[in-house]
């Protein structure tokens, strides 16, 4: 089996840079897609796929595997890049994102790509899907865990709250949901579009164990994941405080990059910036 999991934080940070470069590359080639919400979720996926989750790219359908469900399906590039770096499929495939006759559809499709657990893209579904997987796990007395990532804007969907109530009703402590709290959605600031605060109070009121953490600090994310796993009788939510477009200066907190890919100049600038970060990390002892 390819060695891809590590506990070394520096190594994990390097993987994060690599994934960011893939994202920029993929979106530039595809000439469409969603940079902002892909970049904000990088550290969470790195923490899950390269450290925390029990999974094996050689056995993508192992019934005992932990599952990750990307409810915010428009962040497909970060999921594809993470899966490819783990070894679920050839990294060369990434360049075909969104192209005709390619498995890497604009939004993830479970029947096309090994490692993609659920077809998403219509917002609000992922947590319900996670509930189904978690209920099956309880029924079969399996120890696997289910992780689901939502966008913050996505939690405007009514189905999220149906799912939140249901997970708590069934005491699905084998679920850890995450919210990529980057405070931005297509039409502007989340608090201007459809107020979400207090995120903590709302989810607590629905019976969830709420943990908040800095969403670009892999060490802290791993700590939060462990804390969530250890919590019993309630589902856990990790609110990841993130920056939309994280890692590329001119994309950071810039809502214009929600669903617009970089042009040639922006692409070159972005890769240069990421190369600099990579070099700094590589220079660390």
């Amino acid at each position, binding site marked *: 089996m390819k060695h891809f999991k590590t506990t070394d934080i520096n190594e994990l940070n390097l993987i994060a840079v690599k994934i960011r470069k893939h994202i920029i590359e993929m979106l530039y080639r595809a000439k469409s897609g969603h940079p902002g919400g892909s970049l904000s979720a990088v550290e969470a996926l790195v923490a899950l796929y390269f450290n925390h989750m029990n999974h094996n790219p050689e056995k993508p359908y192992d*019934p005992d595997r932990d599952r990750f469900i990307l409810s915010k399906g428009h962040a497909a590039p970060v999921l594809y890049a993470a899966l490819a770096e783990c070894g679920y499929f050839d990294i060369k495939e990434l360049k075909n994102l969104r192209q005709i006759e390619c498995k890497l559809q604009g939004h993830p*499709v*479970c*029947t096309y790509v090994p490692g993609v*657990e*659920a*077809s*998403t*893209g*219509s917002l*609000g*579904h992922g947590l*319900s*899907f*996670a*509930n*189904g*997987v*978690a*209920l*099956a*796990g309880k*029924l*079969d007395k399996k120890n696997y865990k289910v992780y689901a990532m939502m966008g913050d804007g996505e939690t405007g969907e*009514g*189905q999220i709250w*149906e*799912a939140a*109530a*249901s997970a708590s*009703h*069934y005491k699905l402590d084998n679920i850890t949901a995450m919210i990529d709290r980057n405070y931005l959605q297509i039409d502007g600031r989340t608090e201007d579009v459809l107020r979400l605060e207090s995120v903590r109070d709302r989810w607590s009121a629905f019976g969830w164990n709420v943990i908040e953490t800095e969403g670009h600090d892999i060490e802290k994310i791993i700590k939060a994941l462990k804390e969530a796993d250890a919590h019993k009788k309630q589902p856990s939510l990790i609110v990841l405080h993130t920056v939309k477009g994280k890692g590329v200066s001119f994309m950071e907190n810039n809502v214009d990059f929600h669903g617009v890919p970089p042009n040639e100049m922006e692409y070159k600038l972005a890769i240069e910036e990421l190369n600099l970060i990579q070099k700094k990390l590589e220079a660390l002892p």
Partner: protein
Amino acid sequence: MVNPRNAYGETLVELGKKHPNLVVLDADLSKSTKTIMFAKEYPERFFEMGIAEANMITTAAGLASCGKLPFVSTFAVFATGRVYDQIRLDIAYSRANVKIFATHGGISVGKDGVSHQMIEDIALMRALPNMTVIAPSDATQTRELVKLMATKKGPMYARVGRANAPLIYEKKNDLNNIQIGKGMTVIDGSDISIIACGTMVEPALEAQETLKKEGIKARIIDMHTIKPLDEKLVTQCAKETNAIITAEEHSVIGGLGAAVAELIAEKNICTKFYRLGIRDIFCESGDPADLLEKYELNSKHIVRKAKKLLKN
């Protein structure tokens, strides 16, 4: 008179023994859909999801992804229209092995009115790639079709009505060769074919008797599977009889009648044709029999339309 809903509940209990992976989900209507029978027998495999249908549908998809065989039930209006997006992405596109079994389809729901009278469910489900669409005609057939649904993989939608219905198939033997996707010739005839599904098969049979007395030999087809449509059987009917009437407790848009019309038009088959169904309107509250009379969905209207069609 037997209720197809009871047949569904009883069959689930029977299947529960045979299929340890079978799970049932309901949205606070288990007493009406009769999934409560399964809930009593297998409480650990029954999930009461509350009044939260969207979550129910996607949860079923998640369960199916782990090898479970979910049967999901609620009223037809909430099992399709309310959750179309969830069915589309999580079940149909993802080819999830989820069986949606809806009750209270059509206008014979009666006094609850339009909010509960689902007449577009077949159209909605038919439009989805990968989806099989079924409408059993009586309790015996419901039993057999539910068993087939459990053994055949893939997304499926089935709907029955609310009311008790006479048994068309008295014995299980009448249905020995039943297959999903194959229509059944209940009575053969050479003058006109009446292709019916679900609650309209019984009135079609009544109409056949009336027509017989007037010297018209009607062929009655029970088209329990609307998708995939039994194209061979429809083509035969078009070629061997002088006219086709389709009959369904559903809108004429997108349902059985539309499926038959599309087929014969594309095959360049020239035949006299009429779709008996709800003619692109919302109905109203009322006694089921009165509604079926007013909206022309009983044997009397089938007879009238058949005679008119043959005369033209």
